[in-house]
């Protein structure tokens, strides 16, 4: 049948299905399928129509621009680089303001990320700029964990956006997007090659954020050395498979300038907020005893190129890439981790809701099981404790009885002694009485003898 043939073509073009599933679909969702097929057929054979007058939908881009301008734009930059390499100065120079950053110390035990948000306005365009700085990067003796804090920060921003997206009641157009749109990686100007820490960190970040490497403090490298240095850096990045951000070349208006700039990466920049008088103008520059390095002189450094590429030409593209590439990758990995799939084991498309429901069931069952386990173990432990306590009680009881017995024995002994004493007292008192009697008798006889003598004498 015609429909079967068309159907087969359609699905193979979509690339998802094989014969079995096609027939399955045809049997079940006939109506839906027919509507989809019709739509596809119409699109494939859409015929171009010519207008006979001015309709007015050419103002659509203007409407879009007006709406965005009213809303305001949002841009987040992450600056990674060693302490003192010039991140804050470059930000001040790029945005022509003083962001009031304080000097950080070299003795941070761990890498920390500090984010500050600023509201800038140029013309009638409002920009909410967030600058995230890495504090203490490259200062520790053991830098193996340095990149982890940065990766965690980026993932946290993605996570909060994902949470907002998955909410039931969500307000994405009001949401303050904190995802990092561009990452400026500051390379130390050693003149030889990348440092090992740079390579390790960039490898971990290239799939999460748009990396734009810049060579910091470039006024210490001469022109010939700079050329060799840039080539070495790019070759090292390529040979280690690090994907830095490439300026887009698909839009004809900017493709030529973008492709030129792609060849000048990484930009060698010099930052300065101090002004020096050159000729009759005040320009941002650094004054040395041997000359003056002008920040905005293209011959001296690539600052102007960086500003143009980062802000003037490709800011919107950076935001888009972050959303459509890096964020989507994060989302897919995260959801796959949680167990969601686009198709179930039988290659049928599974909707998010069904997966969610089944996951929830699983989770509940798991929870109940865990509860049971915990209850069991709790009961077990209570029993054990009871037995222990009973043991102890018994022990105490025996000891108590022992002591009681000892006490009674002592008491018996004391009673014995008392009795013996009483006996002795009795004996003694008897003896006493006897002696007293005797004494009385002798006294009496004495006195009677005396009387007798007296009588005799008379």
């Amino acid at each position, binding site marked *: 049948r015609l429909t079967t043939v068309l159907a087969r073509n359609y699905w193979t073009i979509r690339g998802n299905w094989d014969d079995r599933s096609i027939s399955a679909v045809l049997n079940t969702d006939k109506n839906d399928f027919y509507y989809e097929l019709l739509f596809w057929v119409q699109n494939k054979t859409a015929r171009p129509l010519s207008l006979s007058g001015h309709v007015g939908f050419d103002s659509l881009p203007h409407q879009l621009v007006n709406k965005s301008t009213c809303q305001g734009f949002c841009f987040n930059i992450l600056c990674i680089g*060693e*302490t*003192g*390499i*010039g991140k804050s100065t470059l930000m001040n120079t790029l945005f022509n303001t003083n962001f009031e950053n304080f*000097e*950080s*110390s*070299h*003795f941070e035990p761990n890498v920390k990320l500090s984010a500050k948000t600023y509201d800038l306005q140029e013309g009638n365009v409002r920009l909410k700029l967030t600058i995230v700085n890495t504090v203490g990067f490259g*200062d*520790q*003796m*053991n*830098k*193996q964990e340095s990149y982890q804090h940065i990766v965690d920060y980026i993932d946290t921003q993605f996570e909060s956006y994902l949470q907002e997206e998955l909410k039931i009641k969500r307000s994405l157009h009001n949401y303050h997007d904190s995802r990092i749109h561009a990452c400026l990686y500051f390379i*130390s*100007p*050693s*003149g*030889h*090659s*990348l*440092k*090992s*820490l*740079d*390579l*390790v960190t960039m490898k971990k970040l290239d799939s999460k954020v748009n990396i734009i490497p810049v060579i*910091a*403090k470039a*006024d*210490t490298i*001469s*022109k010939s050395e700079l050329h060799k240095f840039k080539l070495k850096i790019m070759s*090292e990045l390529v*040979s*280690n498979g690090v994907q830095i951000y490439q300026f887009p070349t698909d839009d004809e208006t900017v493709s030529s300038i973008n492709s030129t700039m792609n060849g000048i990466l990484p930009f060698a920049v010099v930052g300065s907020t101090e002004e020096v008088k050159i000729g009759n103008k005040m320009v941002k520059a*650094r*004054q*040395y*005893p*041997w*000359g*003056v*390095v*002008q920040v905005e002189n293209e*011959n*001296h450094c690539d600052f102007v190129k960086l500003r143009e590429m980062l802000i003037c030409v490709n800011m919107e593209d950076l935001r888009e890439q972050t959303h459509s590439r890096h964020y989507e990758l994060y989302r897919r990995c995260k959801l796959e981790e949680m167990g969601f799939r686009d198709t179930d084991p039988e290659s049928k498309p599974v909707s998010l809701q069904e997966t969610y429901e089944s996951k929830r069931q699983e989770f509940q069952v798991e929870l109940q099981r865990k509860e049971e386990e915990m209850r069991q173990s709790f009961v077990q432990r209570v029993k054990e404790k009871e037995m222990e306590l009973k043991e102890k009680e018994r022990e105490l009881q025996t*000891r*108590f009885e022992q*002591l*009681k017995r000892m*006490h009674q024995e002592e*008491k018996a002994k004391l009673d014995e002694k008392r009795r013996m004493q009483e006996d002795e007292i009795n004996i003694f008192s008897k003896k006493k009485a006897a002696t007293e009697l005797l004494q009385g008798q002798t006294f009496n006889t004495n006195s009677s003898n005396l009387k007798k003598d007296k009588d005799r004498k008379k």
Partner: protein
Amino acid sequence: MSSLLYRLPSPFPCASGCLPQCITNTWKNLREKEYVGFATLPNQVHRKSVKKGFDFTLMVAGESGLGKSTLVNSLFLTDLHKDRKLLNAEERISQTVEITKHTVDIEEKGVKLKLTIVDTPGFGDAVNNTECWRPITDYIDQQFEQYFRDESGLNRKNIQDNRVHCCLYFIPPFGHGLRPVDIEFMKALQDKVNVVPLISKADCLMPSEIKKLKERLREEIDKYGIKIYQFPDCDSDEDEEFKQQDRELKESTPFAVIGSNTVVEARGQRVRGRLYPWGIVEVENQSHCDFVKLRTMLIRTHMHDLKDITCDCHYENYRAQCIQTMTSKMNADKRVESPIPILPLSTPDVETEKLIKMKDEELRRMQQMLQKMQQQMHEQDL
């Protein structure tokens, strides 16, 4: 450009040691009066030392890319590191520190110098740098040990002195001061070698920034108690110019240096320098960097002082320590009884303490019960 001359005591004001004619004339006059002749001793020393030749070992340490090799080339005006192979970043992730030695013989106006440069590639380059100075301290100790053995040996005629006389430590100018790795390294080496910290690649700092960084570094070196090489105070009978120079030298430590391998044309002269679109940095220009001060200090005036301190101070410390450990080992072997018998302090371990506590508790409980029972008996009796 005034250079610090090595001051011999009068009447020998010039460094070459050959007596100016006027002095020899006055001698001849003196000879007739009361003349002994030992005033020529310095001259004799000079002659002998020129004949013997000098040797000096210099160690350079610091992360790669800070310009160590370039500076050494500029200091000694040679190219010591031809065909050097630099490692890629991925090879350096878990690199260990190596020690490489280059020895060259250079000669100037009849004075021969055997210069050994000890390089430490790989220092501070790996991702995990804990104890990365250990190979360096081991190397220094090895040299001390070898000299100690040679010195204590029977045939001491030709001792090779490979001890490290000076260590130049390169501090990167990109930070705000000392970093943890700098402090640990200098503290590990301060008692073994003369440490001279330098601010490398000083052409990325404006004069105000250099001043701030130097002050910061001096503060932090004091704060952490790091013993770096101190210039000896000059004698009080030296003239003012010398004293002034000496003071300037001391006030501008740590030196901010720039090195260069190339010769450029500046102000009509060919000088060693770096060519930038905005100007030319001259290595030997005192207002551009402290390279001249470093060279003067290291080579022209204090080279011998560095050697002396290594011999008298660091080596003697090592030797005393060595002998002490050897004698204490010998004592332990002979089992000499100490005059005061020391009872071993047995720290009661946790288990026995617990048991003791339990028994105490039980005793107390039983005593309480006894008391109660006695009271009961009393009441019964009454």
